[in-house]
């Protein structure tokens, strides 16, 4: 029997190349290509007065200097569209004031790092020399930095966008305000999350070559959306799309930032390559990545809830002020996700979600792993803790009472999700997840431990957070599966890979569906030469979308293989099975060469009737070898040559994964240092394809969650300078900062797709800020409402707490402090 591959923690197919330095990332390609560097704006908001390149022209090795004027001239002379703003990728009716950047700044710059001049030279060192000699004169304008300044709107980012408001959106189910007003208890929370960023180890990069003879443009880019980059390049450069190939080579991490496209560089580098008739490459450096790519997370939030004596939500109003930076290329995806996924595993009663998406003179904000969910989770979980504290209930009890129950699935929240489809949970078992989490972390025995620690002068706290994640959003993905005449199986899907092990995971699926050893399956992703229709890699969607597409395509191939084999063996197809790459009659012992079996390689040969032989296998398919009836065409009317198939998976809506995390922290009574003693994860992403890969995704997500909760933030000064734009100053966790992650799984299959899988990529990061806020609050005895939190911030909060400026928590693990409230219970002010 072929060992079943789905569910097996097999080692990755990608690894032998990557551990020996044989990976091919963007900057590993194009040896000898011309290199590009950019002059970028040093100001957050300024008018460009003039650009003087005189001093730069003498630099040896300079090839070309381009400004916006050159783009305009090119458009004038040809049919390109480079002088127009970059596309608004995801329009939305509520995005009433969208704005996107020009590939090179036209007249005005709106954040530090915006590209102004492109320099092409023989190498990057020379290109940077040239940049140093180009003088751009600016008239500096007042910068809008931070949400307070954006809301205040004393100054505007774009003079024609009033109040700096790009969008205002409300979604409501029931009359939330009335429900809150009528509730026996009410609470109000003001919360805040700061900016962070995806920060993959490899930055962005683009390498283009134009074949003037073939009129073909090939572009390699470190992207999460190769097919869409292709469409954008074709449109912008006015090259027939059929002459454009886009390839995502090995990509050194993405985490969301590389799903944005086309980046200015993705149209400018190919344009320069065509114009110069030379290969051209640009590799982003780390400072460029900080100031010219994208950030996420920054929000201020207000929660108003009404609840009953048991802590059950009766109504919830959630207001979000979302900082989207200088431009809105990715639309409203992040705040829509925040204001829908805030609901987590709970029934909110009546709900009103409202956000304002605001312009600031800072780097654009687009999805980073979690994509708005960490902020939503933070809001809801802080609220659950607040209710528990207000009523003096255990934090898990309040959550349990608000859970959607398994028998209530599918559960329709009556809202519209980020994919434009209904927010309908397909399956899940939240009570079971909580039980597993409590057992894993030892929730019920923690109070005793905390009391003991307190007696020793130590401060410890426990926290938990729950989330639901809509994964596998549409519209579709596809896959192509072909059995070669060697018996090798090649698979291609259009979406891209940034380290998630897709080649292994998809090979496992196809191996199972076809009945071939996984070693014989080779998978290509993100190469438009191999598969042209795709959406991209984001929203934890690859296993769901491409996984199911690959399964469906493999099933078609299998059906065809069985049909051809049944004719060759003169056996009914239903009596055949495929085992270890051999089609054979069920229940008959293997006997190579017998009339009861035929290798898939031979079936592949037979599937393609030949006139010409080029090897012994092919000779078996030639016209005099095959024979057959003279009355029927060699390829039947409804058939095609080749043992291959394409299929697509397009679900009606997303499938919803879930999980719950708990952490135990210790805070130093003197220094306020925050130490993570334990971190526990229970996770349900439906059926597991490769548990080892899923576990790795969770570990990595948690590490980013720890970073986002305790270390990472983008520190802008009031002039809009990013003060910590380096790995020295932006504190990503090293091994010393990341706890060992203890995991447990629940597998509630999705009823929406053939494999019963749900996405797993983003899960680990979603609840981390909420978990740590909960645990630190428990250790300290007052509520944490702003994340991330540093030791010095915690120290300051302690001082304010001691001065009576912050109310104490009423109930803490192993500690009852008597009177006090999480936050003041305010009367509704309206």
């Amino acid at each position, binding site marked *: 029997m072929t060992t079943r591959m789905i569910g097996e923690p097999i*080692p*990755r197919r*990608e*690894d*032998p190349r*990557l*551990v*020996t*330095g*044989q*990976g*091919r*990332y963007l*900057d*590993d390609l194009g*040896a000898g290509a011309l290199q590009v560097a950019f002059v970028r704006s040093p100001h957050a908001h300024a008018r460009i007065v003039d650009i003087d390149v005189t001093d730069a*022209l003498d630099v*040896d*090795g*300079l*090839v*070309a*200097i381009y400004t916006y004027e050159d783009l305009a001239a090119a458009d004038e002379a040809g049919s390109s569209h480079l002088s127009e703003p970059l596309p608004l990728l995801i329009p939305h009716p509520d995005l009433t004031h969208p704005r996107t950047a020009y590939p090179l700044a036209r007249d005005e710059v709106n954040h530090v790092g915006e590209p102004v001049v492109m320099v092409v030279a*023989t*190498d990057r*060192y020379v290109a940077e020399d040239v940049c140093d000699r180009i003088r751009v004169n600016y008239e500096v304008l007042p910068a809008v930095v931070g949400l307070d300044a954006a809301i205040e709107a004393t100054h505007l980012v774009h003079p024609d966008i009033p109040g700096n408001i790009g969008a205002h959106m409300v979604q409501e189910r029931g009359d939330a305000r009335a429900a809150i007003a009528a509730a026996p208890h009410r609470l109000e929370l003001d919360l805040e999350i700061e900016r962070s960023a995806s*920060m*993959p*180890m*490899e930055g962005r990069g683009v390498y283009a070559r134009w074949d003037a003879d073939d009129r073909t443009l090939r572009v390699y880019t470190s992207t999460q959306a190769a097919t869409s980059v292709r469409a954008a390049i074709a449109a912008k450069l006015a090259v027939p799309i059929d002459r454009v190939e886009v390839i995502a080579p*090995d*990509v*050194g*991490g993405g*985490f969301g930032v590389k799903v944005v496209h086309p980046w200015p560089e993705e149209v400018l580098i190919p344009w320069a390559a065509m114009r110069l008739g030379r290969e051209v490459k640009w590799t982003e450096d*780390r400072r460029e990545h900080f100031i010219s790519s994208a950030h996420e997370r920054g929000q201020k939030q207000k929660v108003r809830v009404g609840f009953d004596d048991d802590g059950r939500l009766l109504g919830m109003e959630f207001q979000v002020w979302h900082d989207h930076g200088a431009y809105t290329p990715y639309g409203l995806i992040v705040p829509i996700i925040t204001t829908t996924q805030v609901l987590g595993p709970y029934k909110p009663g009546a709900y009103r979600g409202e956000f304002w998406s605001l312009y600031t003179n800072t780097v654009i904000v687009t999805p980073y792993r979690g994509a708005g969910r960490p902020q939503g989770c933070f809001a809801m979980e802080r609220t659950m803790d607040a209710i528990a504290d207000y009523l003096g209930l255990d934090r898990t009890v309040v959550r349990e009472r608000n859970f959607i129950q398994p028998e209530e699935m599918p559960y329709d929240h009556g809202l519209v999700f980020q994919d434009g489809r209904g927010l309908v949970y397909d399956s899940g078992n939240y009570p079971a997840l909580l039980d597993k989490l409590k057992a894993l972390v030892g929730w019920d025995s923690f109070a005793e431990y905390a009391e003991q620690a307190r007696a020793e002068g130590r401060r410890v706290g426990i926290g938990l957070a729950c989330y639901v994640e809509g994964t596998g959003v549409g519209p579709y993905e596809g896959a192509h599966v072909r059995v070669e005449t060697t018996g090798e199986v090649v698979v291609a899907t259009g979406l891209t890979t940034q*380290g*998630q*092990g897709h080649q292994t995971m998809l090979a496992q699926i196809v191996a199972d569906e076809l009945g071939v050893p996984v070693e014989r399956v080779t998978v290509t992703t993100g190469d438009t030469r191999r598969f042209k229709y795709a959406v991209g890699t984001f929203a934890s969607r690859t296993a769901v979308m491409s996984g199911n597409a690959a399964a469906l395509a493999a099933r078609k191939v299998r059906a065809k293989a069985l049909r051809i084999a049944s004719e060759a063996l003169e056996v009914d197809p239903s009596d055949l099975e495929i085992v270890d790459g051999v089609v054979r009659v069920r229940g008959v012992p293997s006997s190579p060469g017998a009339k009861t079996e035929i290798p898939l390689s031979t079936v592949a040969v037979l599937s393609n009737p030949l006139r010409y032989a080029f090897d012994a296998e092919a000779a078996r398919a030639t016209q005099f070898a095959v024979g057959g009836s003279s009355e029927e065409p060699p390829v039947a009317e409804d058939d095609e040559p080749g043992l291959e198939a394409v299929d697509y998976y397009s679900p009606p809506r997303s499938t919803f994964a879930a999980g719950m995390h708990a952490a135990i922290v210790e805070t130093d009574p003197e220094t306020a240092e925050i130490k993570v*003693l*334990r971190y526990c994860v229970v996770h349900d992403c439906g059926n597991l394809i490769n548990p*080892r*890969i899923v576990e*790795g995704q969770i*570990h*990595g997500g*948690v*590490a980013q969650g720890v970073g986002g909760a305790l270390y990472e933030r983008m520190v802008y000064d009031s002039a809009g300078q990013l003060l910590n734009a*380096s*790995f*020295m100053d932006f504190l*990503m966790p*090293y*091994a*010393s900062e*990341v*706890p*060992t*992650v203890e995991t447990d799984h629940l597998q509630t299959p999705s009823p929406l797709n053939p494999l019963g899988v749900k996405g797993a990529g983003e899960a*680990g990061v979603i609840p981390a800020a909420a978990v740590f806020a909960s645990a630190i609050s428990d250790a300290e005895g007052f509520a944490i409402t702003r994340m991330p939190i540093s030791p010095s911030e915690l120290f300051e909060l302690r001082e304010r707490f001691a001065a009576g400026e912050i109310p104490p928590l009423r109930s803490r693990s192993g500690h009852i402090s008597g009177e006090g409230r999480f936050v003041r219970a305010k009367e509704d002010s309206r």
Partner: protein
Amino acid sequence: MTPDRGPTEQTHDISLTVNGVLRQARVPARRLLSDCLRHDLGLTGTHVGCEHGVCGACTVLVNGQPMRSCLLLAVSVDGSEITTVEGCTDPDGSLGPVQRAFMECHGLQCGFCTPGFITTIAAYLRRNPNPTPEQAREAIGGNLCRCTGYQNIVASVLRAAEIMREESGDAGVPAAGHGRGERA
């Protein structure tokens, strides 16, 4: 647009023994070792993640010592022996112990930081062939990874030590416990 002109910057001829092979390059004084290895010698396994010595992706062994090749000028290591990730294989070209351990323990995802970890760990295990889990975590404490959360890299360090002990025929005392089983 100006015509393409060749560089007139002063250059220096240097010799490096890279992965046991004598290599020569003509480089400007300011050429970083990382760029020299990647772009002059075509050894693109050494990756550059931050260009300022913080992430460790560019770590190579210079005369056996792990160093950040993005902080070294190529001319400053003229005459040195350099080991890159390409040179961390076994003599027959098959995966070396650290490389095998990374594969077995799922110690990598995107693989961009991995070369720096592999060179660092290879050097470390020569100094300390029998690390505890705590020491293993400490050993990788200067390298950044954005994908894995480090847990499986710690396991890889321990597993690599185990493989090396197995290969040297020295059963040893596995102070590290089993490589796959790191627990807090």
